[in-house]
């Protein structure tokens, strides 16, 4: 239904990025998010951009598909850029337009923030584009494992996550189906005054909730019928394994971080 939003969509493949262990990907992305904020000159930003673009190309996910998927985010990026143009008053005045004065600091800041934003979104969507939701939850479960000592329900949390991820497409389909059925009965979701459009949501939401509750009940019953018991001693179908590829991934990332810290401006 929504063709433009790609966050959370998995594109099957067998590229190097696809084959990385989910824990490797999650760890690298986690640190990348911090690292982005350490870049402060053209060269250091260049390194981060190069890293992200290389990862994107290695993943073999069609570039056009990713860029199209980022359309809603582009709007946000451009908006932040423009906001910085108007609000930041540092450096020298570059040019004037009527009552507005544009400062060099504003332009630079605008660029920097936009690039950060772009990098963060690109890298995180690469994770979901190249990793199945199940792999991601398995990875997170494994990484949170130490918390178990503090009675943190790691397994239950991971199960909840994978169930909700699993049902997102189902719910989207259901929404699509019901909205089409109601549209056939003359509901107009797209035009008309706001009040009418809000009212048009009721015939959509009520059936959706009913089916979601029913589905939850059925799932619980099916799990119980098959003797599901969470937690200890439960074995896994897919064991996560760290391979040479992951070690290389880490090494490359450490290298990138090292270069970044060498090139950034201090003081």
């Amino acid at each position, binding site marked *: 239904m929504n063709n433009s939003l790609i966050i959370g969509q998995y594109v099957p493949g067998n590229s190097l990025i696809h084959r990385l262990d989910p824990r490797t990907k999650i760890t690298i992305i986690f640190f990348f998010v911090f690292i982005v904020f350490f870049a402060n000159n053209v060269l250091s930003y260049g390194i981060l951009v190069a890293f992200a673009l290389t990862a994107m190309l290695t993943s073999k996910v069609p570039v056009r*598909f990713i860029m199209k998927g980022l359309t809603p985010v582009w709007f946000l990026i451009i908006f932040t850029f423009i906001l910085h143009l108007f609000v930041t008053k540092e450096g020298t005045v570059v040019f004037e337009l009527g009552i507005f004065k544009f400062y060099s600091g504003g332009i630079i800041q605008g660029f920097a923030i936009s690039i950060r934003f772009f990098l963060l979104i690109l890298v995180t969507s690469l994770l979901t584009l190249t990793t199945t939701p199940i792999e991601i939850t398995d990875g997170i479960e494994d990484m949170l494992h130490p918390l178990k000592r503090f009675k943190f329900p790691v397994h239950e949390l991971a199960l909840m996550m994978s169930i909700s991820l699993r049902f997102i497409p189902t719910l989207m389909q*259901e929404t699509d189906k*019901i909205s089409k059925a109601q549209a*056939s009965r*003359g509901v107009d979701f797209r035009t008309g005054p706001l009040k009418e459009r809000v009212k048009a949501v009721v015939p959509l939401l009520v*059936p959706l909730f009913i089916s979601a509750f029913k589905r939850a009940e059925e799932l619980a019953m099916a799990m119980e019928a098959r003797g599901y018991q969470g937690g200890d001693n439960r074995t896994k179908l897919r064991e996560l394994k760290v391979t040479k590829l992951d070690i290389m991934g880490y090494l490359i990332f450490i290298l990138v971080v090292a270069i970044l810290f060498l090139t950034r401006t201090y003081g």
Partner: protein
Amino acid sequence: MDITFKNVTYIYQRNSPFEHKAVDGLSFHIPSGSFVAIIGHTGSGKSTLIQHLNGLTAPSEGEVHIGDFKLTNEEKPKNMKELRSRVGVVFQYPEHQLFEETIAKDIAFGPENFGVDQKEIERRTKEVIRQVHLPEELLDRSPFDLSGGQKRRVAIAGVLAIQPEVLVLDEPTAGLDPRGQKEIMDMFYELHQQEGLTTILVTHSMEDALKYADHILILNKGKKFMEGTAVDVFSQREALQSVQLDVPEVVEFLIKFEKKIGKQIPFHNQSMKELAEEIRQVVKGVDEHE
């Protein structure tokens, strides 16, 4: 309303790795007042096809004409609401679309959206609840108190209350018990004849197609595989089997009969009684030879 498809292609998620042609170069014509069955496997493009009939989707390529309405990739009719009031669609598992507090309100939902006045709605509500064979006392009850089969009838009543000229049915009997299936199909057939509707039935059941449809359209992988009357289509057993479709039991029986007895009885959509008579004739003929 006449329905014409001219070279219609529909592509899902164009320009993405998930691009997928659901309907591929489809052309056909359905004259007003006919009962058409559309048959095909899951993923053959049936559901996508019917969404074109009331403008829920527009073709990626080609043209769809429904009466005076024309749908192409570039232009959509401005009076979409009118199109939807004239083409009623009963989706698969229509009971999932129920949402109102009372059955009467749910039935009135469609006509209300299309601006029918209150008095007329009341009249229609009473009429359609009778048409779907439910007691009028139910009207003030909640639709969620009903059984599955009754819910389906209420949902169907909600579409009938719009009084469409074209009725599109997407596997209306799926998940019902055999008796419920027969009742619902007979009900649609009765309506088709009484109200002079154009009916389009999407089904997996060859028996239903044989029994009710005067024209059959078979889809395979988004393309038209076969088209014609029940006799035309079901005489081609081998072709149907090549796309994993069965023939109705009668045809199956006639083929086995020919193998066993060595005499051929041509299939011409005969009734049970006619068939019995034909068999009698043939068997008598065999006896006399001996």
